[in-house]
């Protein structure tokens, strides 16, 4: 039991560390083409932990991290928070099925989740009076899913075989 508690603590610590690292990545001085291509690392990390450790990382975590992303982007508070909340909700309700999916199915699902978050953001920005930026706006979803695939092919366990853990 002690061991389990320690493992749980370790997991929590790695969740916080990875979220922190993702946040630092967002704070990098991105500019130009890198900014248009930059995947939403924060959302990817949150989705990963949702699949891996649904008890420790949930909608609330996503909302909280969304607030920090809002702060970093300098937009209106709550935009990223709302986008992340809704996206993670769809990840959570399908979490049990997702871990049984094949890696391709999972990839498609992650891609649609990334697109969903961008769509929500787009709608919120449209309400705030901004224009659609063209289709290149959705590129971060593509790079994001590529990054996910790269991470999986390098052996990152996205919860698919973690039944015994």
């Amino acid at each position, binding site marked *: 039991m002690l061991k389990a508690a320690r493992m749980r603590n370790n997991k929590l610590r790695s969740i916080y560390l990875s979220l922190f690292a993702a946040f630092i990545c967002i704070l990098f001085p991105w500019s130009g083409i890198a900014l248009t291509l930059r995947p939403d690392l924060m959302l990817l990390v949150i989705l990963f932990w949702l699949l891996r450790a649904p008890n420790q990382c949930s909608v609330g975590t996503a909302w909280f991290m969304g607030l920090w992303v809002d702060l970093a982007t300098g937009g209106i508070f709550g935009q990223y928070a709302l986008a992340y909340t809704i996206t993670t909700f769809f990840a959570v309700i399908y979490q049990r099925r997702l871990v049984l999916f094949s890696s391709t199915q999972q990839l498609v699902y992650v891609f649609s989740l990334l697109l969903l978050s961008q769509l929500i953001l787009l709608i919120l920005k449209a309400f705030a009076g901004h224009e659609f*930026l063209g289709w290149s706006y959705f590129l971060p979803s593509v790079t994001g899913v590529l990054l996910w695939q790269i991470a999986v092919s390098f052996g990152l366990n996205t919860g698919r075989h973690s039944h015994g853990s």
Partner: protein
Amino acid sequence: MMRGIHQNFDQQQAPAFFARGPSPLARLTFFTALSLALMATDSRLQYLADVRENLMTLLHPLQVIANAPSRLYQSTDEYFSTHHYLLAENARLKRQALTQDIALQRLDILSLENANLRNLLQAKQSLTETSILAEIIHVGRDSFTKKIIVNRGKNHHVITGAAAVDAKGVIGQVTRTYPSSSEITLITDKSLAIPVQIERNGLRAIAFGHGRDNTLDLPYLPANVDIKRGDKLVTSGIDGVYPAGLAVATVIEMRTTQDSPFAQIICTPTGGIENDRQVLLVSIPEVKQETATEPLASENSKLPATAAITPAATDTKPAQSPKPAIAEKPAPTPSANVESRPHAQQ
């Protein structure tokens, strides 16, 4: 399922179904409501400005850490820059210094002459602008807005509303100040308007950022307006925000269509919005005070320079403008915007 049971054996807690806490739907509703409330508060009310400021102070060390790699790269890049490159740059800077020295000598004489003339006319001395040199920390991360963050803030006496200028022209305006950084909205941002004047004929207009491309629009000008391709736009200074006479943009396209009474005019900014590292934050102090205490005297309208820095003087036309008939043209809509738009934050 198996996994849930397993975990609950490990942790000696309630079954996984209950250990998960409130249902996802409940969480979704709760956090969505919270986000919507936050958005409403932040966009309509000003309560969250202080919160944002404090959190940004907290964020600043992280920002420094995040900037460290690129900063390191830049400094090593500079360190290893070639002899040839340095020689070329040195020669270029010397040439630049020479031409600027000549211009500066003339400026000294001219400002002396200006002061004397002002004394003769007993006009108010023109205000001296305070300027702060700042370095760009990073470009705004929101692709919907055109913003940059610079490394000078409230601690360095940067005030909201100061104009941001680089060597070639105006690039934007300070819209938010934090303790050690501030946010500049670029003139190409959709929410920013800047009062301009055509250098060639003194015609006044308001330039709005286009938002998407790095261009500016000159809307609400009639189709027969006297603007040509290549015309230079300079700040008119009637807003009390930007010092008068700074280069803003160059007209690259002027289109008129049959179905619209207005001309479509597209301009590119003169300032190196995308490729400079240093900007100058220029603020005109105490403009409001001066206009409040001093009634708009008739001699003010004779002096375009004085009238230019007085926001109240928007409707006094510059007497020396070569084409006064056209100079009146800027439609009533933009001039109504002058008061509200430059200070407006979205």
